[in-house]
C-alpha cells in the first residue's frame, strides 16, 4: 500500500484551519513580540520540528506543487528537458492554464472512469465493512480455537499485497487457473474471470474485499472489546434480545472506531493501485480502470507519455478526496461526534 501513502497523508492533513480571531488586524507590535518570545522560549522545539518540516516539504510539498504546475502545462515526454550523454534537450512545454481540467471534466473518459471508481469504492468498502463487522462479532465471543481463527483471518494482511494479488491472478486464469479447474471438476462451465468486463469487475472487488477484511476485522474487534460488558448484562436483565443489544449497544459503541476505519478504507480503496494494476491492468479494454491506474497509464504506459494529463487527473483525485473528507467530517460533527 506504499503507493497511495502520499495522497493519503495529504488528504488526511487537509487544509489547515484558518486562523480565527486572534492576531488579525491588531497592529504589528504584538505579534512580532509574541513570535520573538516564542522563538526565544521555544527555540529548541522549533529546532526539533525543523527536520520534519524539511522532510515533509521535500517528499510531499515539492512533488505536490510540481504536479499542480505540470497539470497547468502541456508537458509530455517529448517536450520536457532531458540530458542524455551528449544530447542536451531543453524544455519546450508551455503553460496552458486550466485547459487540461476543462478537457478532463468535459470528456467522457474522466467521468466514465470516475463512475466506476465510485462503484468500486462503495461496494468494496460496504462489503468489507459488513464482513469485517460480522467476523469481529463472531470472534468476540468465547469460541473454541478463537486465537487460531483470528490468526488465520489476519493472514491476507500479513502477505504483501502484490504477492497475494499475483496468487489471485493465477487462480483466476481462465484456462489454467485453479478456480476453473475446480468448476470443471464439478462439471460446470469455465467462468471468464478476468476476460469478461462484468465478471472482471466482480473479480477485482472480491480480491480487494479479501485483502481489506482483516484490517476491518481487527479494528472493529478492538472497538468491540472496549465496550464494557456490564452494558450487555444490564440490557439482558431488562430483557433486550440479541438484535436490540447489537443495535443499541454494539453499534453506538463502535461509532468512533467505525467512522475512522470507514474514512481510511474509502481513501485507500479509491486509490487502490496494486489490485487493479496487477490483476487486470485496467482491462479487459478499460473495464476495470480506476482513476489512479488511468493516471498511471497516461504517464507511464502510453507514448508519448502525457505528464500533463496524468498530473491533472492526480490533482482531481486529490480534490475529490479532500472534498469527501471535509464533507464526512462535517456530517460527523453535525451528529455530535468530535473528530
Amino acid at each position, binding site marked *: 500500500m506504499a503507493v497511495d501513502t502520499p495522497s493519503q497523508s495529504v488528504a488526511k492533513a487537509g487544509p489547515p484551519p484558518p486562523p480565527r480571531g486572534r492576531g488579525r488586524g491588531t497592529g504589528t507590535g504584538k505579534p512580532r513580540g509574541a513570535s520573538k518570545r516564542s522563538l526565544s522560549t521555544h527555540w*529548541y522545539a522549533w*529546532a*526539533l520540528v525543523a*527536520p520534519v518540516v*524539511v*522532510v515533509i516539504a521535500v517528499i510531499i510539498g515539492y512533488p505536490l506543487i510540481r504536479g499542480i504546475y505540470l497539470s497547468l502545462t502541456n508537458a509530455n*515526454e*517529448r517536450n520536457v528537458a*532531458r*540530458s*542524455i*550523454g*551528449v*544530447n542536451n*534537450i531543453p524544455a519546450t512545454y508551455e503553460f496552458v492554464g486550466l485547459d487540461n481540467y476543462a478537457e478532463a471534466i468535459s470528456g467522457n473518459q474522466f467521468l466514465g472512469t470516475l463512475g466506476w471508481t465510485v462503484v468500486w469504492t462503495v461496494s468494496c468498502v460496504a462489503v468489507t465493512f459488513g464482513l469485517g463487522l460480522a467476523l469481529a462479532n463472531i470472534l468476540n465471543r468465547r469460541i473454541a480455537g478463537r486465537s487460531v481463527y483470528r490468526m488465520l483471518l489476519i493472514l491476507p494482511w500479513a502477505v504483501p499485497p502484490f504477492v497475494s494479488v499475483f496468487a489471485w*491472478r493465477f487462480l483466476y*486464469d*481462465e*484456462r*489454467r487457473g485453479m478456480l476453473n479447474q475446480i468448476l470443471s471438476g464439478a462439471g460446470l462451465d469455465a467462468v471468464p474471470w*478476468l*476476460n*469478461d*468486463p462484468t465478471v*472482471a469487475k466482480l473479480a477485482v472487488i472480491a480480491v480487494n474485499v479479501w485483502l481489506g477484511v482483516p484490517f476491518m476485522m481487527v479494528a472493529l474487534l478492538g472497538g468491540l472489546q472496549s465496550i464494557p460488558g456490564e452494558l450487555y448484562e444490564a440490557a439482558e436483565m431488562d430483557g433486550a434480545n440479541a438484535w436490540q443489544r447489537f443495535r443499541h449497544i454494539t453499534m453506538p459503541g463502535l461509532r468512533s472506531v467505525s467512522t475512522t476505519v470507514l474514512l481510511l478504507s474509502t481513501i485507500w480503496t479509491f486509490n487502490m493501485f496494486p489490485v487493479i494494476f496487477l490483476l*487486470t*491492468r485496467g*482491462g*479487459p*479494454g*478499460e*473495464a476495470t480502470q480506476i482513476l489512479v491506474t488511468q493516471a498511471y497509464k497516461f504517464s*507511464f*504506459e*502510453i*507514448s*508519448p*507519455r502525457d505528464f500533463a494529463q496524468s498530473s491533472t487527473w492526480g490533482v482531481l483525485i486529490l480534490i475529490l478526496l479532500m472534498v469527501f473528507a471535509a464533507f464526512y467530517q462535517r456530517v460527523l460533527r453535525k451528529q455530535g461526534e468530535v473528530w
Partner: protein
Amino acid sequence: MRRGIAATALVAALGVTLAACGSDSDSNGGGTQGSGELSGTVTWWDTSTVGSEDKVFKKIAEGFTKKHPKVTVKYVNVPFGEAQNKFKNAAQSGSGAPDVIRSEVAWTPEFADLGYLAPLDGTAALKDKDDFLKQAAASTQYNGKTYAVPQVIDSMGIFYNKKIFKDAGVQVPKNIDELKTVSATIKQKTGKTGLYLRGDDAYWFLSFLYGEGGNLVDAEQKKITIGDESGVKAFRTVKDLVDSKAAITDATNGWDNMQAAFKDGKVAMMINGPWAVADTLAGKEFADKANLGIAPVPAGSAGQGAPQGGHNLAVYAGSKNLDASYAFAEYMTSAETQRQVAKELSLLPTRQSVFIKPDVASNEMITFFKPVVDKAVERPWIPEGGSLFEPVKVEYTKVLTGQTTPDAGAKAVADAYRKLLKDWK
C-alpha cells in the same frame, strides 16, 4: 544533553539518506585505453523469450569477453512487454539505463526522436553496412542518421500441430473462411479448439487488418486508415472467429496462455513468429520436432499479409562506455553471431551473407520465413510507431469481449490517432 544526541542522530540519519539518494554509480566508466584496448562494463538489456532464447543470447553475449578480455558484459533479460517503458524511465532519469538495448523495430525511431540513442554512423558498431537487408536497415534510420544495428528480422505465420490436423483429416487453411471450417472440423473430430487468437496484444491483430487490405496509417500520404471500412472488417473478422468458437482468446496473460495451450496440444493452431519457435519446440507435443508445421497467415477478403518486425541493437546516448558498446553491438550483429543464433534458435538473420550459409539455408523455419519476410508489410518508421499499438490494443480487447462494436472500435482508434498524429488526415 541526551536530547541533543537524538537530534544529532536524526540529522545524521537524514544526511545519510539524502546522500544515498544522490549517489549514482559511476563505476562502469571505461573505454579505450592508450593501447586501444577496450575495457569497462557493457550492460545489455535483452528482450528475448525467457526460458528458451535468453540462455543462448546470454552465452553469446558473454562470449564478447573472449575477444575483449578487459570488458565485462552484464546480461540482463527484461521481459519484452516491459522493456520499452523501463528503458524510457531509465534513459530519461539517466540512472540505471543499459549501455546497449535490444530495441524492437518500432521503438527505435521513437527512442531516437527522444534523444536517447547514440548515432552510429562512422562508429565501430556498423560494419559491412551494405550486407544488411534493406528492409531490416530501414527501421534503424531516423532523420538521415543510423541509430541502431539490425539484429533479427521476423514476420508471422500459422503454427500448426500436424498430429491434430491428421487426426481431424484437414488441410492448413489458406483464408479466413477455410480457417473457420477447419476449426469446426477439428472441434467435431478431436474436441480441440482450432485457433488461439492472442487478444491482449494488437500486434496479433495486424495480419487480419492487412488481409482486408487495410493498415493502421498510410505514412506516405499522412493518412489515418484504421477507421476505414477495411479496419472495421478486420475487427469484425476477429470478433467472428471468437464468437463462432473457431478461436479462443484471453484479455490478460495472452502470451503464456497461448504458448501453454499450443504446447499442450489443446489448440491446433496459433499465429506467431520465429521468436516463438524455440519455446514451442520445448513443449511436450513437439518432442518430435517434425510435429510443428508452419504456413502463411490466412488471407482475408482482400489479400494476405503479415507484419514485418524484428529487433535492433541500439546504444544509449548516455552510456559511460560508448566505445565498448559500439564494439558489442557490432559483435552481436556480426555474420558469425547471426549464424549461430540462426542455427540454435531459428531466428532470421539480417545479413544477406548469412542466409546463404549451408547450415542456415537448410533450417526449415528460416527457409519458410525468408519469403514471408520478403513479402511482409513494412510498418511506418515514424517516431509515433511505438505509440500506435496502445489505442488498438484497448479497442481490440473491447471488441473481442463485446464491450464495443467493430465500427465504434475502429472509429475510436482513428480518433486516438488523430490526437497523436497532428495534422494527419
